[in-house]
């Protein structure tokens, strides 16, 4: 494997080069990318309008934020300086999942692809920082870097190494679309890397093991997974697809769930959250990376991806022409779950 540090440096150089070009030729007014965070283990999104700020842009294996969130209507008002900037041209540093989000959002008529240029990069995986934090415990981390195939975590008086492949985000381990997908409708929007997705072989072996358990074991597992959930709704806030003006959890006429932190309320929240993301979730893993109690929602997100793939043969964010599965219907849909008369 190529040295990770070199890879990251190459990607960073590429982002800076393309951004400079885009800003100089006035193709875009604003570039959204990643910059160094104020804490170790965190990177900040950065908004760049001038060529001389381009040096702020970086890429490393902690760039977990899904930048496409900044484009949906609720949030995009923050990036516009004035009302007159309605047609702001935006350049976006896009790894595979960010590009898929953009495609999906455009299918849902939330954004206009004409205003967006993707700076495509070939993502090399995001580190599962929650897991690293758990391993390190209460000791203070001052720096995290990658070298060769290892993650090196430095602290006040310790230095530990973790294998990179093992400590990736669960969704990155199974990710098949690393760079913006090549679609005929999107070809003018992509600068930099893109990926041919014509023969995409998705497999869902990673959740097979869980599915083979008995219902009781599954219920126990889900209970264990979710019981620490405080329902802070950080997963909803960060999700680029949760752009409803009034979320179902905030409704009180009628109120769909109790507001307690009891298991039935928690589980039904996660159940309906998953249901609302069916056919939409692109598996960017933002929800897992922001959870303050470290719940990994990738299991549930993978399942909804699988259901939609198996039942409706749809892969979210890899197609700009199909009607969304939940917006349409088919006479011949599988209805094996319907109750029938016996004999």
């Amino acid at each position: 494997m190529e040295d990770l540090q070199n890879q990251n440096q190459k990607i960073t150089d590429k982002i800076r080069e393309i951004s400079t070009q885009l800003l100089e030729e006035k193709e875009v007014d604003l570039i959204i990318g990643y910059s160094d965070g104020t804490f170790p283990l965190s990177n900040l999104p950065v908004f760049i309008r001038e060529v001389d700020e381009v040096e702020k842009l970086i890429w490393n294996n902690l760039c977990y934020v899904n930048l496409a969130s900044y484009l949906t209507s609720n949030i995009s008002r923050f990036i516009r300086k004035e009302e007159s900037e309605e047609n702001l041209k935006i350049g976006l540093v896009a790894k595979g999942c960010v590009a898929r989000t953009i495609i999906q959002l455009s299918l849902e008529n939330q954004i206009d692809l004409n205003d967006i240029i993707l700076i495509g990069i070939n993502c090399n995986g995001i580190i599962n920082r929650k897991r690293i934090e758990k391993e390190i415990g209460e000791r203070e981390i001052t720096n995290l870097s990658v070298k060769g195939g290892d993650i090196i975590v430095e602290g006040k008086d310790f230095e530990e190494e973790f294998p990179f492949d093992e400590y990736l985000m669960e969704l990155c381990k199974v990710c098949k679309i690393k760079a913006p997908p090549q679609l005929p409708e999107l070809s003018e929007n992509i600068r930099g890397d893109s990926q041919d997705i014509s023969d995409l072989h998705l497999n869902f072996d990673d959740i097979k093991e869980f599915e083979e358990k008995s219902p009781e074991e599954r219920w126990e597992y889900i209970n264990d997974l979710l019981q620490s959930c405080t329902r802070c709704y950080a997963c909803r806030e960060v999700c680029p697809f949760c752009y409803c003006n009034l979320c179902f959890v905030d409704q009180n006429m009628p109120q769909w769930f109790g507001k307690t932190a009891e298991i039935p309320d928690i589980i039904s929240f996660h159940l309906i959250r998953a249901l609302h993301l069916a056919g939409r979730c692109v598996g960017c893993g933002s929800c897992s990376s922001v959870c303050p109690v470290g719940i990994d929602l990738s299991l549930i997100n993978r399942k909804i991806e699988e259901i939609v793939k198996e039942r409706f043969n749809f892969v979210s964010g890899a197609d700009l022409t199909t009607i969304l599965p939940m917006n349409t219907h088919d006479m011949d849909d599988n209805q094996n779950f319907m109750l029938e008369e016996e004999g």
Partner: protein
Amino acid sequence: MNELSMEKKVNKEQEDDWEPKMIAFLCNWCSYAGADLAGVSRIQYPPNIRIVRVPCSGRINPFFIVKSLIDGWDGVVVSGCHPGDCHYISGNLVARRRFAILNDLLIFFGIEPERINFMWVSAAEGERFAKLIKTATERVKKIGPNKKFNKKW
């Protein structure tokens, strides 16, 4: 403590002859009329269901089903017109996609698939309605009371 949980407590004391309480969402044009036909034809079926009439199976939000479980119902019955016969052309087809995903997710979470019963019943099928309700009641009876969604208070 609401009326439902009061009744449940009484039920717990006599566990031998426990009868499930099921909520049934029936579409106005087919299943509700089908249930009516079963009634006027004097076909016997278990008295465990409480019917909620909805305009179309497309009106049934998955929330209804999940909320029914949280509220302590032992089983849920969802019934609409046969595919292609919907009064609103495609309401039941749209609903079927939603139910498919909800059904798969509930099973994935480890909730017994027997608790949620989806069915198609037309206005002319009183007998079929009675039979399916009987099957559904037996299914729910077999798995017992809805304990997974019990709240501590």
